[in-house]
Every structure is written in structure tokens, then in C-alpha cells.
């Protein structure tokens, strides 16, 4: 019998029990759709993280005080006091390919305005930080190298801090705030950047000259970090190695001593994040795959019921000349048609649901051809796998017994 005839017989049999067919297929539809949506959400999250990193600039390199290496004694990054402003100057002057550089010293303080106060991150930075981070200002201007040199008490507010202290959308340029009981003049407000995929809220902070943090707020001489950007096309590995060599020499570390600083690029952090998201995508997809499996078992269940219920039909088909192979193929084809139809509808439902999720819940989602092919292929494989046992059972029936079956 030709595959086309087998297909026609299978479709006719499925149509005879349209309701049951639809409900059985529903299991697979949900399974396939779930896999597609889960993978789409995972991929969407990953690509949005990648976008944010690209926007933040992959050529940003951070040098933090303290080491993450597994030495016998690991110190927190905050406790290391060996990273000095002179190190920052040395990097800027001696290492080729450094474009902008900003020494950093941070603290967390209560910021007080006339009628409100807010606990936030005080980020001490150099004048070039906006160039490194590609920040723009909503109001006013960023502080100048001169402000840094003088440890001026000037502050640039993140939009969240501005909203909290002065009310949303106001322009507090020229107003005064107090940090640790010292008056600071507000000279600008940063443009809202939105929640970042990693790190602290980029809008909930106050940026002041790093010298001001050192001298006026913390009374320290060391730095906590140095942020720098490299010129385009300069490989991170080279810059990182040169900075490491330079700082080890400056800190007079012997060969056996571990680094007392950590050089990291945003790109590196990005790859960690991306791999985390990938893991999560797989986790979500495997949970969805379980529902696909359950759908497959549903098919087997229904096919078994169907074989028992249609024993006389099978007997009849055998008596009018069907070979055992024809019966096997018929039931296998029914399972296959069921799962492929379910798979196809599931793909469409998956597309629709992904679209819905990204529009209603504002989650990024990305349907990939891989996810579609994978789940559709799984549906087909499940159809054959779970359809085979019932089909073999049908084909093994004895025609006389089958005809007599009540």
C-alpha cells in the first residue's frame, strides 16, 4: 500500500473521532508551544543582555583593588589599599591604547536635600567617566578635571536620586544637597538609563569627583577601582597583561605573591552572564520538554485505547487482505499525523505566545529556527516512539480473534 493511501486512511480514522484527536493533539500542542516560548524568552533575555553590553561598550576595562585569585588568604576588594592614584596616572601614561581613564572611589551615604533625603551610592570618578560609559546629561554639565584636582564639592545626580530629592522631571541644577553634613552643589543630572542587566542601578547614584570622596567623605588616599576604555581594535588581552605587569612592578610584588588587584573587561563579564542565561534557557526548555513527553504518553495512551476499541475494525481489515505491515503502518501513521499536526499547531501557538509575552509582559523574546525545528522534530520522534508499541500490538492481532472481539 502506498504511503499516500496509508496517510489517507490515517486521516480518515482520526477525523472519525475528531474530538478525541483534538484533545490528544492538545497535549503535544502545549508541549511544543511551551518549548518554543521558553527558548524564545531565554534567547530574548540573552540577546537583550548582549545588546546592553554592546551599548555599554565592550572596550571598557575595570581594574579593581584586591584579588579574586584563590590564594591562602582572600581579601575583599574593599580592604586592599594598594591601588593608588599614581597607578592610574601610570596606566594612562605608559600603556598604549588607553583612551579614557577614570579613577574610582565609592561610598554609600545618606544624601539630604531641603525637604527629602535618600540613601544612595556615591560614586567618585574622574572627569572622563561619561566618555567611558557613554553617559549623557539631561540637565547641566559633568564636573571638569579642574573640579577633580580641587576636590570640589560638586555632584551630578542620577535620575532616581533627582526624582527622590527634588521630584520627578525637575531641574535641580544649582541647588544644594548635603552629604555627610557637607554641602554639595548640584551641577547636572544624568539621562535616565533604565535598569541594567547587571551591576547596581545606573540611575540610583550620585557622581562626584573621586578626590572629593577620598578627602572629604572617606579620608583615604587609595582608590577602589580604575575604569578605562581602550581605543577601537586594541585587544583586551594585551592591555590586561600590560596593566598587570605594570601594577605588579609598581606594587613591588615578588613572583610568588598573588596580584593585589583584578583586571576585568566588560566583555568577560558579559560572557559569564550570557552563559548563565544559556543555562537558564536550557533549564526552562527542559521543563517544557517534560510537558512534551507527557503529551507523547497521552498519544500512546489514546492509541492503545484506540487499538482495543477498533479490534473488530482491525480484524475486518485483515480479513479483506490487509497485511500486518499495513495495519502497523496505519496506526503508526495515525500517531505520526497526530503528533505532526499537534507539532505544527504548537509551533504557531508558540509564535503567538512568544509575541504575546513580549508585548504584554514587556519581556524580550526571540523565536529561533533551532527551537522550532527542535520541538517539531521532538514531536515527530515522540509520535513514532509512542505510536510504535500500540501499532505493533494492532498488527500482531489474530484476524479470527479480532473479528470475534466484542
Amino acid at each position, binding site marked *: *500500500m*502506498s504511503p499516500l493511501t496509508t496517510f489517507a486512511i490515517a486521516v480518515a480514522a482520526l477525523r*472519525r473521532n475528531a474530538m478525541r484527536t483534538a484533545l490528544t493533539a492538545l497535549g503535544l500542542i502545549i508541549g511544543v508551544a511551551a518549548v518554543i516560548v521558553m527558548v524564545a524568552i531565554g534567547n530574548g533575555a540573552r540577546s537583550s543582555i548582549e545588546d546592553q553590553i554592546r551599548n555599554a561598550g565592550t572596550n571598557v576595562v575595570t581594574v579593581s583593588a584586591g584579588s579574586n585569585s584563590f590564594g591562602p588568604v582572600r581579601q575583599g576588594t574593599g580592604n586592599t589599599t594598594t591601588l593608588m592614584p599614581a597607578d592610574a596616572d601610570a596606566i594612562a601614561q605608559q600603556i598604549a591604547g588607553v583612551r579614557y581613564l577614570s579613577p574610582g572611589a565609592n561610598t554609600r551615604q545618606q544624601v539630604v536635600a531641603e525637604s527629602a533625603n535618600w540613601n544612595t551610592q556615591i560614586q567618585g570618578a574622574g572627569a572622563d567617566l561619561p566618555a567611558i560609559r557613554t553617559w549623557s546629561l539631561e540637565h547641566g554639565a559633568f564636573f571638569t578635571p579642574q573640579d577633580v584636582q580641587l576636590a570640589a564639592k560638586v555632584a551630578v545626580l542620577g535620575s532616581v536620586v533627582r526624582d527622590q530629592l527634588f521630584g520627578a522631571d525637575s531641574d535641580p541644577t544649582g541647588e544644594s544637597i548635603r552629604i555627610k553634613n557637607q554641602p554639595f552643589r548640584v551641577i547636572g543630572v544624568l539621562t535616565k538609563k533604565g535598569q541594567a542587566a547587571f551591576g547596581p542601578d545606573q540611575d540610583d547614584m550620585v557622581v562626584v569627583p573621586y578626590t572629593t570622596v577620598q578627602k572629604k567623605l572617606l579620608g583615604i588616599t587609595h582608590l577602589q577601582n580604575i575604569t578605562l576604555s581602550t581605543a577601537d581594535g586594541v585587544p583586551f588581552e594585551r592591555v590586561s597583561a600590560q596593566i598587570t605587569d605594570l601594577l605588579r612592578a609598581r606594587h613591588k610584588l615578588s613572583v610568588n605573591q598573588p596580584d593585589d588587584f583584578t583586571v576585568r573587561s566588560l566583555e568577560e563579564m558579559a560572557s559569564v552572564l550570557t552563559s548563565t542565561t544559556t543555562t537558564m534557557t536550557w533549564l526552562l526548555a527542559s521543563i517544557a520538554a517534560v510537558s512534551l513527553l507527557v503529551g507523547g504518553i497521552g498519544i500512546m495512551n489514546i492509541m492503545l485505547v484506540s487499538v482495543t476499541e477498533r479490534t473488530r*475494525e482491525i480484524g*475486518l481489515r*485483515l*480479513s*479483506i*487482505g490487509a497485511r*500486518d505491515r499495513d495495519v502497523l503502518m496505519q496506526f503508526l501513521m495515525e500517531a505520526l499525523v497526530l503528533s505532526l499536526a499537534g507539532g505544527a499547531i504548537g509551533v504557531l501557538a508558540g509564535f503567538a505566545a512568544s509575541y504575546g509575552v513580549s508585548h504584554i509582559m514587556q519581556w524580550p523574546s526571540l523565536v529561533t529556527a533551532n527551537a522550532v525545528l527542535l520541538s517539531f522534530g521532538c514531536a515527530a520522534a515522540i509520535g513514532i516512539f509512542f505510536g510504535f508499541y500500540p501499532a505493533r500490538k494492532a498488527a500482531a492481532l489474530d484476524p479470527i480473534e479480532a473479528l470475534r472481539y466484542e
Partner: protein
Amino acid sequence: MTAQDPLIGVRDLTKTYVVGEVEVPALRGVSLSVCRGEFVALTGPSGSGKSTFMHLAGCLDRPTAGTYQLNGRDVSCLSKRELAAVRNREIGFVFQGFNLLSRTSALENVELPMLYGPPVPAKERRHRATAALEAVGLSARIDHHPNQLSGGQQQRVAIARALVNEPALLLADEPTGNLDSRTSIEVMGIFQRLNRERQITIVLVTHEPDIAEYAARIVAFRDGRIRLDNAVEQRRDAVEELHRFDAETQAA
């Protein structure tokens, strides 16, 4: 092969079923010849072996011993697949329970045997199925589903299905068992007409003596052997019987 060669030639046919460790003999050496164009009724009480004989004659099963020549070919040693092909081309079955596919039109039910044989184009299938339904007087109902048909009509669809591949042999297993008296006579009338007009060989299994009398020859089974093999002396004619039946019904 000549016209005198029997269509069914059975010699010393034995069938023994093994139930657990016990051997149950169902047929204990049956020899029988049925010529082309014959109308034979197989009778006997249940357990007599008539059904077992019919299953063997219908190539649904293989004998334990003995030979079976169907249409000049020894079919007792064929494989399962070869038997399926023989069933498809040489034999038409009519069952007590009709065995029609539900929610499937009469036409599609009749087309079914053609799907399992050598490929037949859809147009030709439809043409042949329509012709077979016409032959049993159901041409007006080819699109009806079984649940829209009476028992007699359903059995006529089943007969059309048995005829559609133009088999040499029609095997009917208690074809009137689920039908009332009048419909039974009608169905027997169809068999008689097919036998007379088309020279189709019919083997009928029944335990009703009056139904057996529509055949030309009665073979009675008992305990796995043939007890009697006689021509019917006063054969019933379905057309006459139908007139008589209607007259009696009106009188009553």
C-alpha cells in the same frame, strides 16, 4: 485447469488448537470439494467445526495437517503475507455483525478492499464501488453512513464490499444472525441472485435450518467431521418466500 476443477478442494484437513497443554481437535480430517458456481450451506451445532472450517477456507488460518486447493492453487502452506493477498483477491467475506467502519460512507466502506490490493486509481475505485452497491440495490444510499442504514441495508453494503474485488468465492458467516425474518429472506435473495446471475460460488455458514435451505447443497458438521453432504431437495426461492411471508403477515 479446466472448468471441472473444483474451486475448493480440501483433503484430510485437520486443525488442532493447543490450549495450555491440552490439544483440542477442532477438525478431524475433512475432505470436501466445492465446484465453481455452487451455493453450499455449512450447518452444525456450535463446536461442530463449521466455523473452523470456514476460517481455513477463508485463509484466515492455516491447517495443522491436510491440503487445501483454492482456485487450483495449494494455499495450505502459504505465508501470512501471501494469505493476505489471497484473501484480498480470491475471497469476499460477509459477517454476522456487518463489520462496517462507522462514520464512513457506504461508498468508502465498499472501496476498502481495493486499498489493500494492487493499486487502483481513485476514479476506478469509485466506479467499481458504485457498481457493487448497485448490484445489491443500494445505489441511492452510497453517501449514507452505517448508522443511517437499517440492518438489512448495512448487510447489503457488506455484501457489496465482499464483491468489489470480484472474488471467486464468497464466504458468509451467519449473515442473517442479526436480522429479522423478512430482512433475512431479502439478504438470502441477494445471495441467490448473485449465485444465479454471476455464477459466484457461495459458502454459507448457518445454524438455522430454514436459511440453509436457500442453498443448493447442505454440508452438516459434527464433532470436527462431515456428517452429511446432500443436495437440497426442496430448495427455497427467496422471491417466493418473500411473497408468502408478506401474505402471511397481512393475513395475521
